[in-house]
């Protein structure tokens, strides 16, 4: 997935061309940036996820007590998923422990085991869907995709109703998701924040610049996930191979809005933080024109996604297919621009971790 990095790795950083050569960002610059990322994006992001999952759990409970609130459940589900998409790009720290990243959203399910496992789980009428159940359950049963199946699936009108298994399952699952989100928020507050902002106080990051590396990975690498999974896996090599039902959130109709949300979060890491952003650091390195062009490309791609409509049916019409393939190319190009940006800032995203042997 990451072999494009070798291409960018061969390109010289743009700063080599600039005269005079400027010093790379200082420790203080990175410290300020890291603090901005944690305080302005990561902590609020997990807090929002907790709040939205709390609302979702309440709404599912109300629906399962009183009935007739499926529309509201769907709406709060979409908001919770949106909150997850806004922080999904952070793939370091507490999210990596105990496979939480897979438990929250096991996707893509290329082995196709999820559907069968969920069917089986929902057919166990004597099952107690409590915290222990979900702790021990397969990741296919633990996260958003399983909940999406219950809430948006064909059987929702008949079976996601008070007193039914689907309701008990959804209540337990939304409680479980909420618990995981609370753990993430607390562990970021209690531990990961300190590691990232005070590198000298732990044996993790060796410097403020080293602490910025996982943030820079969080900025750049999700573009490869969007390209490879959210688009290429759906589109295949040709229009004949394209399958919208492989897409991330086709049941809830959020596949495209997910990409939009991801891009907005990445752009925030790039240019939206105060008082220092990646864009301002690049500008300070004498690469203001390049920095601005990357920011504009973020804007342009988001406008491109916003202009598209989610398909109603399984088929992807030829026009949308072409537009999505253009989007895939644009995202690939944007990744390469960010790789160049990392070169200017003297940040290595990875070497041994990317191309193993």
């Amino acid at each position: 997935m990451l072999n494009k990095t070798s291409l960018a790795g061969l390109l010289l950083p743009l700063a080599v061309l600039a005269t005079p050569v400027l010093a790379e960002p200082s420790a203080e610059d990175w410290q300020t940036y890291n603090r901005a990322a944690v305080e302005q994006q990561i902590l609020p992001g997990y807090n929002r996820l907790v709040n939205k999952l709390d609302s979702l759990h309440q709404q599912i409970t109300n629906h399962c007590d009183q009935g007739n609130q499926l529309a509201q459940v769907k709406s709060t589900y979409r908001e919770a998923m949106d909150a997850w998409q806004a922080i999904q790009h952070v793939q370091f720290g507490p999210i990596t422990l105990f496979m939480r990243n897979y438990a929250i959203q096991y996707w893509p399910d290329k082995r196709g085991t999820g559907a069968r496992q969920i069917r089986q789980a929902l057919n166990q009428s004597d099952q107690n869907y409590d915290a222990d159940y979900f702790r021990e359950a397969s990741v296919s049963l633990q996260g958003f995709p399983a909940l999406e199946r219950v809430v948006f699936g064909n059987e929702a009108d008949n079976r996601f109703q008070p007193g039914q298994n689907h309701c008990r399952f959804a209540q337990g699952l939304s409680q479980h998701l909420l618990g995981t989100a609370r753990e993430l928020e607390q562990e970021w507050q209690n531990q990961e924040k300190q590691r990232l902002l005070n590198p000298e106080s732990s044996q993790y990051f060796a410097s403020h610049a080293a602490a910025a590396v996982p943030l820079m990975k969080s900025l750049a690498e999700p573009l490869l996930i969007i390209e490879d999974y959210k688009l290429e896996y759906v589109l295949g090599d040709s229009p004949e191979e394209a399958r919208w039902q492989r897409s991330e959130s086709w049941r809830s109709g959020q596949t495209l809005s997910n990409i939009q949300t991801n891009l907005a979060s990445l752009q925030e890491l790039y240019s939206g933080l105060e008082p220092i952003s990646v864009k301002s650091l690049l500008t300070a390195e004498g690469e203001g024109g390049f920095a601005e062009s990357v920011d504009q490309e973020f804007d342009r791609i988001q406008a491109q996604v916003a202009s598209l409509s989610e398909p109603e049916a399984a088929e992807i019409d030829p026009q949308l297919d072409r537009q999505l393939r253009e989007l895939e190319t644009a995202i690939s190009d944007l990744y390469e621009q960010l790789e160049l940006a990392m070169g200017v800032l003297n940040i290595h995203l990875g070497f041994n971790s990317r191309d193993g042997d």
Partner: protein
Amino acid sequence: MEINRRQLLSWLAATPALATAAPLLATPTAAEGLRFASSARGSDGHYYLKISNTLGEQLASHRLPERAHQVVTHPHQPWVYSLARRPGDFIDVFNSDTLQTQALITTQPGYRLYGHAQVSPDGRYLYTSERHPSDLEGRLVVRDILADYQVVREMSTRGIGPHEFHWMPDGQTLVVANGGIQTDGREKLNLDSMQPSLVYLDSESGELLEKRSLHQDFHQCSIRHLDVAPDGQVVIALQYQGHPIDQVPLIAAHRRGEELAELQLPERIRSQLKQYCGSACFDASGRFAAVSAPRGNLTTLWDMQERRFLNAAYVADGCGLAPTTRAGEFLVSSGLGQIFTIQALSEERQPVYAANPPQVNWDNHMTLI
């Protein structure tokens, strides 16, 4: 290739005292620091053999034709062998005394290196793990150092994709990791049917002495990197080719005559390793081992006498490992440029480069010289 054979013979016959008279082979004092060698990508995008010391000084930087993988040293001479990364075809021989290229060897037509080598304990033969042009079973190819590195024999490794291999303490037996993966270039072709194995071969006859595999459920755990303790215990770093959520062994150990044994990791650590371990290494005492996991940014530390997990050190993109002269202490190199000393029995971690690490990406393996 300019090697004066008479001079070479005299070198090989040299007594240890004479051999260690060479400056870079002298036992380093604390003030000099330990010397280590590793291949690396430089900031110019080219690949190098780098020789440095633990004081943070670079002693040699030697341009290589392409990206290399393991670096091995000659037991008696100041020769450092850089092995092309798979599927490469060069072995660069560098003299760490004269800082000159000693030789540049290429593989036989159609053969490809898997990136690993060993020199026989008597210093006479260079062994490399290689892909055969037509046979799926990998080879150890043996070159006579006294005869301009001519290939004198080869032996099947009894498995596909041999990778790292080491001498057993008897100096006669080789233990080989057969990764099990059939490749075309760097494309993997047989992940559904791969059958990795650990084999012990007689280094002269090529006879298969013992062959071990993990349980069939774990046939996608590629056995790739290993190290051997003075008592003959083998520690093994695995790379799982299956699904990211599967619960599979990532680190194993073996003694002759026994089954392969998984080393049990706490789930909190195991879940972070991304199914991939990069390098394995025993310490100077042979009691402790380190196994790096560059994708998880952790290096795990083990008491190998009890086969017990001790702790995990955070080293971002850390992969290359070497023992220092102190029990329980290791060097870990990072693809991001830094090198650390880490401890099996404490969480202390010291950077070798106090201020600015060099602008290089250290490659997967390092070796003391």
